[in-house]
């Protein structure tokens, strides 16, 4: 047929299209899938040789990460000191550092590499819960340097640890009466800092926040490279002020013919009043291209469960901590939701605690009653504590959920012991409930908060096991492998209203594939996360993941 049609063969193609679930060949033309089936069925499409390069690989639809942040691309300019292994955008496996000595050793190496003695050393990814609750003190960091300012940013991004020189320069050593300046055993500041007062003082003293500067093309390229390494072909940037500089950068990056991922930025609601945001999105949508999809808005209703800032219904936090914080006033949310809903804008609403989820559903119900929009697909992001009754309301209202499956592994133990207690922790990120009730759902990483990697996220939902080995609701809330694969492909695409273009391998859709070394449906479910990712195909362009 067409000279430009390429037919790929594969060991197996798992299409995630229920009407033709498996195939051996796929024909691609003009960046889109023109046919899927057997060699015989595709004979008419192959003008020349069949492209055999994937004949020993498994093809899946390119994975869709429905909740992650461009910051994943910015972090890798700084050394990583988290406990879990992580893959850098250049394909290198960066081993986790699992005790204080190992963290100090890695920081020493990074410190020695900086020439200017006054340049601060920043690092990221630390979480005491992942190394047996051990804190990183200023004395630990003083072992790295007593002269150079050092700041280690926690995995949560809300807490950091600094060395003594930073505390001395900022005069915070004795300021332990200030919220978030944590006291050590000697009564002086331990080096752990949270909250805006300490943040303001420290960043002024260090000459700025390394993560608040302007986004660069290199950051966007790193984000795309990280996606490729994990088999992701559609990725969100789920909270962005979308300043002119960022808009120009996204425009330029996605227009490069070989740019390796489809980008879905969500406009941060806080950055504009709704009326202005709606006008801004209308203009932005005009500039959409194959790899850039503006249109959605992100609202943040509460904080995080492990940070005790999520809003919980009675009886609240398991350990008795006071209820969390509203980031949007409960009486404001219905007004904001209503304005966007009437304008036909799809909302992605961050709600971690069940009180926040209930409030968001109240607001959507009121908006939907006042102005029915048949396919609004408003999506609750994280939605970690919803019970069955809240899922039933989601179903009734046409609301989707994007559940934070990676939390089961990374903070499952904290939720069991501290925040939610055994019963509620067992239905944390209740994928099984969503599946049973029929709420359309996806699962996500929130990268860089947890590592980007849909196969790992699927593994979390299939095995529901914490980092210490405790299982959480495995009997009732696990997904089958098929269901989990749907949640990282067509399910996530549905929550972004992109399911007509991506999320399955079928005629007419973009030729976006995840190229895997093994068949997820054939390996043991507990090995899902270990399947090698060869790379991706994006719009017919083959991208081999860098490996180092």
């Amino acid at each position: 047929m067409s000279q430009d049609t390429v037919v790929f063969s594969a060991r197996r193609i798992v299409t995630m299209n229920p009407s033709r679930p498996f195939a051996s060949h796929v024909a691609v033309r003009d960046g889109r899938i023109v046919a899927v089936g057997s060699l015989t069925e595709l004979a008419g499409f192959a003008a020349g040789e069949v492209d055999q390069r994937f004949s020993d690989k498994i093809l899946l639809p390119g994975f869709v990460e429905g909740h992650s942040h461009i910051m994943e691309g910015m972090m890798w300019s700084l050394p990583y000191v988290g406990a879990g292994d992580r893959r850098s955008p250049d394909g290198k496996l960066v081993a986790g550092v699992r005790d204080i000595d190992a963290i100090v050793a890695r920081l020493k190496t990074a410190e020695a590499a900086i020439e200017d003695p006054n340049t601060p050393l920043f690092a990221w990814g630390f979480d005491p819960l992942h190394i047996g609750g051990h804190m990183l003190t200023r004395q630990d960091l003083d072992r790295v340097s007593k002269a150079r300012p050092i700041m280690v940013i926690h995995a949560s991004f809300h807490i950091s640890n600094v060395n003594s020189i930073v505390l001395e320069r900022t005069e915070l050593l004795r300021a332990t009466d200030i919220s978030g300046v944590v006291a050590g055993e000697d009564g002086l500041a331990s080096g752990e800092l949270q909250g805006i007062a300490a943040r303001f003082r420290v960043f002024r003293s260090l000459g700025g926040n390394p993560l608040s500067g302007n986004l660069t093309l290199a950051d966007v390229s790193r984000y795309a490279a990280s996606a490729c390494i994990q088999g992701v072909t559609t990725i969100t940037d789920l909270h962005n002020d979308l300043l002119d500089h960022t808009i120009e950068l996204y425009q330029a990056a996605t227009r490069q013919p070989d740019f390796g991922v489809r980008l879905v930025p969500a406009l941060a609601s806080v950055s504009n009043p709704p009326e202005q945001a709606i006008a801004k999105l209308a203009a932005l949508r005009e500039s959409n291209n194959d790899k850039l999809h503006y249109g959605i808005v992100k609202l943040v209703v509460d904080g995080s469960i492990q940070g005790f800032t999520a809003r919980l219904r009675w009886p609240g936090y398991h350990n008795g901590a006071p209820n969390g914080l509203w980031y949007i006033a409960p009486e404001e949310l219905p007004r904001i939701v209503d304005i966007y809903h009437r304008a036909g804008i799809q909302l992605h609403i961050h709600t971690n605690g069940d009180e926040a989820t209930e409030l968001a559903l109240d607001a959507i119900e009121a908006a939907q009653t006042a102005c029915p929009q048949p396919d609004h697909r408003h999506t609750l992001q994280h939605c970690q504590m919803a019970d069955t009754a809240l899922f039933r309301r989601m179903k009734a209202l046409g609301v989707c959920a994007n559940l934070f499956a990676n939390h089961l592994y990374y903070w499952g133990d904290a939720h069991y012991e501290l925040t939610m207690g055994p019963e509620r922790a067992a239905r944390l990120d209740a994928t099984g409930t969503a599946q049973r009730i029929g709420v359309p759902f996806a699962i996500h990483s929130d990268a860089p908060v947890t590592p980007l990697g849909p196969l790992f996220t699927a593994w979390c939902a299939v095995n529901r096991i914490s980092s210490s080995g405790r299982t959480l609701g495995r009997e009732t809330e696990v997904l089958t492998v098929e269901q989990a694969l749907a949640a990282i492909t067509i399910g996530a695409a549905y929550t972004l209203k992109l399911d007509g273009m991506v999320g399955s391998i079928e005629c007419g859709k973009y030729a976006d594939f995840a190229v895997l070394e093994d068949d997820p449906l054939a390996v043991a479910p507990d090995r899902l996360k270990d399947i090698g990712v060869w790379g991706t195909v994006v719009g017919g362009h083959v991208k081999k993941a860098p490996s180092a």
Partner: protein
Amino acid sequence: MTAAAPIPVTVIGGFLGAGKTTFLNRLLAAGTARYAVLVNDFGEINVDATLIERHDGTTLSLSNGCVCCSIGSGFLETLGGLLDGDARFERIVIEASGIGDPWRIAEIALVEPALRLDGVIVIADVRRIAQLIDDRRVGDTVRNQFAKCDVVLLSKSDLVTAAELDAARQAVLSVRPDVRIETLLRETMPDLSLLAGSRTSSRFRADGVADDALDHEENFRRWAYRRDGTFDRGRLAAAIKKLPQELLRLKGTCRIRGEAAPQIFQMVAGNWSLSPAGRDTSAGAGSIALMGVGTHDLPPDAELEAILDGALALDDALAHPALI
């Protein structure tokens, strides 16, 4: 160290719709001092157009010397930019978010040497405050806004009866029995420096002028502590831990050994802080003047004085303030 005296900071808190913006509009228009006012949302700022000299999208410059900056989504950047700029202001006024905790913002002024916390004012709508305090979803947020404020301003009082006004006052007192409460009147603009005020001119005046709210409440007892001398910081920290919990608040000026500047001391519910006082404070060298408020069963003065005396520097001869 900067040679200039720290700029006093007033934080304005209060729930959505309390009347913060109206208050700030009047403050800007009155222009009784060179204020820099940081607001959450420009949209509602409504200053007489004839006053506006320049409007560049994020900053409104007025002919009376005041500026108004939109916080947008970058509050810390906005405040940092203000401190780094050339313009010098007599006072910085910061509007907290309607669901935020104004004390968290106030703490910035406690740790930043270029700033001095002058006061936290929370505005409350008399028609709604009682209901908000008990609200299932936002009650904790609203109550928390009062926890560490210096003064509560009741707004929209002309819209209610005297009985309703009193009910609003009682609702606030149920959260903060010792707080000073003032009624905001449409025709007069209160002076910020007198309202929350540098400590010596507020309800903790060393001359002990009675506080309105306390006069109405016989369930509270005041206590004044005065000494010629200086505290030792470490001993002070230890002494404060020994103070009885019946002592609700303690405020005033003091000297700390080794510190050149007189210090403003504040303690609320066991949390305490020291911050350098500006030039305008009346604290003389080597003097300590603190005013406390406690519940009716506050232990005798002598007992309290013994605790704080334990915090005095042992050898005052060594207490000459070092040069900054």
